[in-house]
């Protein structure tokens, strides 16, 4: 059992980060904190990919001896593909956070609050006033 | 079963399309009422003549058929003018001419608003009815069945009053759920047998299904077509739909919509299940019980109705179940009696509805209690009414007697002689709720009738014509279209297997 725990510590950390991210998104009332939760969630998935790509005894996937592709021993290098995928995921994360912050700023400009409960009341108050 | 010789020709498609073609013309000429009415009449006469061209072929047992494109994988939009289809199309299109003339008088007399929408929807209804008559398979039947529902809705709610809206809502709920039941039944049959084409003698008989699937399937079918056929538990939309203007209730609720329901029942019984299957699993007893209950109850309720149109509505429900009873008895004579009753009842009932409309427009009276003494000032109208009621009660000179007589023979032939009692008793009930009106109109002194005269000729003419037709068909049933011979041929075609 211990070996299972220590052997998969990477995955345990991903799990913990996932739950923190979800908690942040659902229970936090401040919009920006929700965004932080969302980013944590994204980062945890990136971490998941990287832990999957790791190999015992594998080094950074940069070719040391360039004696042609045949001589490359794949066990010596960790799996490079998840890393490239995660490059795109990071860029997507940046773009999402960018759009999210733009939206949060417009919300703040219109309702002068970032707290969700206050926001809902002001929206309800708006509801009775004719939608401009 | 003799292989009917099938010729393909465009006429069935033309019959359906001719009134659809008239719709844009009607809509365009909404500014000029005379031109608009001319288009309606032209479409009606064109449709009737086209159906007439199909008649000789139908009498000789030939089928003219045209299948257009695929409606459903394995099933295509097929318009098949078999004898039964032509028969029903003949009645509906014939009476459409008379109803158009009548509605010109009615609409102008009552200064109704939105007449363009009225005539356009009427034209669409008729083309849907033709589609139902010529439907070659269940999916085409379903297609036109639902189009008829949509096209009739604006007519039911024509007056746009509160009562009209609630009537329309109730009408929709009933007919839409009927459509859904029919969809379920059609798809289930397609799943079981792989084909949906109507075949005289029923295409299910070859499928060797057991009772466990056939009884629910039959109930689904009856639920689907029964609503429009006004079978008792599903009938209550018909009296409330009387909120519609009278020509609508005259043609639609006496000829087009309800008759297509009954036509559906006959199609299901004769062309989907077939007599052998029905008898084998006792499906006919279900139908006989339903029809008998409806006949008796409807006539009883009709007696209590004070509003003239509601009374006629319940009488229609009763007479529709004559036809359903004819179908349920499964003998060839009973089938031909039912088919005959479709035609003759249409003529009689449309006369009565026309009179109700004429009375409403002329004297603005709707209830039976207010009709005393109007016979003297509206002799032609009330004379026709008397003729119609005589026929409905089944008294000899008028055509009602002929079809009731054949139905009686059918009951005896199919081994259910006790059904005769139902026919006779309901005949008495018919007399009980129609003759007092005639008596009150002619022999009771009326008040507030000074200076009133006969209704406008536009209305009385069609009225008298239909009354005359009922009388002539009563005396010589095979007049003009040899209807009895056609009905006998259809009855033989369906019930032929049994004897």
């Amino acid at each position, binding site marked *: 059992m211990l070996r299972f725990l220590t052997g998969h510590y990477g995955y345990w950390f991903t799990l913990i980060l996932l739950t923190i991210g979800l908690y942040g998104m659902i229970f936090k009332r401040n919009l920006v904190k929700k965004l932080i939760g969302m980013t944590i969630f994204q980062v945890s998935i990136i971490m998941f990919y990287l832990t*999957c790509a790791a190999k015992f005894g594998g080094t950074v996937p940069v070719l040391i001896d360039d004696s042609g592709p045949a001589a490359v021993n794949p066990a010596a290098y960790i799996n490079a593909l998840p890393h490239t995928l995660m490059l795109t995921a990071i860029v997507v994360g940046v773009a999402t956070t960018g759009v999210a912050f*733009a939206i949060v700023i*417009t919300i703040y400009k219109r309702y002068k609050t970032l707290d969700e409960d206050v926001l809902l009341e002001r929206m309800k108050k708006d509801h009775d006033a004719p939608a401009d | 079963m003799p292989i009917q010789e099938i010729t393909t020709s465009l006429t069935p498609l033309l019959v359906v399309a001719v009134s659809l073609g008239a719709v844009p013309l009607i809509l365009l000429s909404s500014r000029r009422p005379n031109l608009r009415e001319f288009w309606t009449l032209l479409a009606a006469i064109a449709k009737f003549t086209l159906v007439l061209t199909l008649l000789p072929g139908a009498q000789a047992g030939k089928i003219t058929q045209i299948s257009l494109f*695929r409606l459903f*994988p394995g099933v295509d939009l097929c318009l098949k003018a078999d004898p039964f289809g032509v028969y029903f199309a003949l009645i509906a299109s014939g009476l459409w001419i008379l109803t158009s003339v009548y509605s010109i008088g009615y609409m102008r007399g009552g200064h109704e608003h939105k007449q363009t929408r009225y005539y356009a929807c009427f034209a669409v209804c008729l083309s849907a009815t033709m589609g139902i008559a010529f439907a070659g398979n269940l999916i085409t039947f379903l297609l036109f069945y639902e*189009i008829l529902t949509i096209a009739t809705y604006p007519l039911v709610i024509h007056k746009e009053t509160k009562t009209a809206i609630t009537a*329309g809502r109730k009408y929709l709920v009933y007919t*839409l759920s009927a459509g859904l039941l029919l969809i379920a039944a059609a*798809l289930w049959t397609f799943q079981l047998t792989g084909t949906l084409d109507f075949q005289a003698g029923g295409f299910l008989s070859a499928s060797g299904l057991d009772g466990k699937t056939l009884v629910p399937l039959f109930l689904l079918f009856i639920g689907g077509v029964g609503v429009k056929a006004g079978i008792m538990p599903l009938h209550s939309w018909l009296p409330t739909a009387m909120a519609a203007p009278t020509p609508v209730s005259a043609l639609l609720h006496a000829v087009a919509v309800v008759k297509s329901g009954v036509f559906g029942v006959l199609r299901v019984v004769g062309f989907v299940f077939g007599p052998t299957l029905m008898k084998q699993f006792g499906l006919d007893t279900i139908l006989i019980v339903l029809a008998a209950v409806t006949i008796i109850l409807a006539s009883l309720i009709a007696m209590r109705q004070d509003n003239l149109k509601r009374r006629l509505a319940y009488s229609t429900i009763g007479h529709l179940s004559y036809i359903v009873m004819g179908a349920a008895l499964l003998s060839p004579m009973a089938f031909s009696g039912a088919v005959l009753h479709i035609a003759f009842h249409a003529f009689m009932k449309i006369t009565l509805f026309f009179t109700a409309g004429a009375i409403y427009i002329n004297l603005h009276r709707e209830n039976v209690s207010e009709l005393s003494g109007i016979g003297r000032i509206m002799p032609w109208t009330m004379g026709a009414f008397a003729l119609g009621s005589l026929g409905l009660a089944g008294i000899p000179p008028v055509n009602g007697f002929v079809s009731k007589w054949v139905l009686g023979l059918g009951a005896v032939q199919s081994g259910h002689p006790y059904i005769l009692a139902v026919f006779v008793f309901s005949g008495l009930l018919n007399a009980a709720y129609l003759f007092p009106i005639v008596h009150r109109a002619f022999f009771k002194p009326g008040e507030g009738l000074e200076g009133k005269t006969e209704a406008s000729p536009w209305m009385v003419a069609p009225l008298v014509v239909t009354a005359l037709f009922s009388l002539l068909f009563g005396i010589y049933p095979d007049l003009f279209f040899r209807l009895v011979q056609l009905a006998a041929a259809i009855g033989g075609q369906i019930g032929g297997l049994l004897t």
Partner: protein
Amino acid sequence: MTHLLTNSPVLPVLILLSSALLGTVIAWRRPSLSWPFTISVVAVVTAISGYNLVRVLREGPIHYYQGNWAPPIGIEYVLDHLSAFVMLVVNTVALLVLFHARVVVKAETPGKELGYYGTALLMLCGFNGIIITGDLFNLYVFLEIGSLSLYGLIAVGERKAPIAAFRYLVMGTLAGCFYLLGIGFLYMKTGSLNMADTAAILPSMLGQPAVLVGLMFVFLGMGIKMALFPLHGWLPDAYTYAPSASSALIAPIGTKVGAYVLLRLVYFVFGITIIARTLPVAKVICWLAAAGIIYGSILAIAQRELKRMLAYSSIAQIGYVALGIGMANRWALTGAILHIMNHAFMKGCLFLTAANFRRKLGHSDISRFDWSIRKKMPWTMAAFSISALSMIGLPPMAGFFSKLFLAMGAVNGKHWIFLVVILFSSLLNAVYFFRVLEKAYLKPAGDAEAADGACARDEAVPSMLIPTLIMALLLIILGLLSTVIADGILAHIAPPGL
């Protein structure tokens, strides 16, 4: 030029991507140029996707390798009957809606046309990419491209639009991350990201927990994107508060693309064996979809605002598609794909009419509809009635035929409860659509004669009216042609094991 057409599968995505940026650069100085540019681009893309469909029908499925790297290394674009058909539908609807959007965008979001059309093109690029890609991760990238521009399109709306957009963003990103997590599990197990490859490898490792967990995450992600019943929280606000042009653009094709992905994954990647036997995912999808149909229809009845009612009816209609996917037989699959097409046109037409109402009457509040609306806007009301009758499922409109196929699928698979749900729900549809029709057609505003003359005809501008009427007309034409489409195109879709 003819050489360029050999790689026609990838052209729609490329043209949309480049024109999204080119549009902003070109129209930088003269924003009024952006609408004509957008329309011409989308027209070209629709023409190409039409050509693609013809090409697929002639040559069969086409596999296009990006940069000529064969899978599993390279990214493969698969143009088969399903993707070509859905692509054509999405582009046609987008063309009609964007044609209608000129007046509405200028009115509701003044001064923002430049960014609006650029984002709209980017969204279309994302959706076209999702439809055509054959690579799981590439699908995630296009999903994010599409969704990010979606959030942007919603956020430019009225006062409460940013909040709806924010909530949609959080749930949408959550969905994207779940999908990414799901692919991670699958990739670690099968070692390949290419759909055809994964489909070949998966049967050998059916029972392994990692594969099943990956499958569940992928479905959870797609469920949110598709607004399947319990995961639809973001949809009503997003469609209601978005500007009319955006909701008319997103409603018809937004959830449909999610449904397409679910269909592609269920039938072509995981295959029927996993879905139906090892893990009863098909059953779960069916039951969620059935619940969604009832929930969506009942909620739609309770709504006062037309766009919110249409949003809830979207949840119900996407339930039909999911039900078709879940029932896993040939009829239901054809019904689902047909319903994707029909609902795209129906919902597009309905939202266009809602936009016309907002533009001309200033509101789209059902309780304030009355008899004069039919006098003022007869053509829009005609289009509304045709699409409403089609939503209820009445012939000869398209809705009837796709419901016929779905019901046949239910009968074929002996799912009697789903048959009842499919048929009974059209009564619910009838209730909330006839409620509007009755108000518009029948309630006499005061004394009929006086009002009759008062409301002169005040129809929407032709540029808004023509697309609405085209869509309504298409509904009837597509309805009658639905079986020709089913036999001609959809019959060739042969998912393994069906």
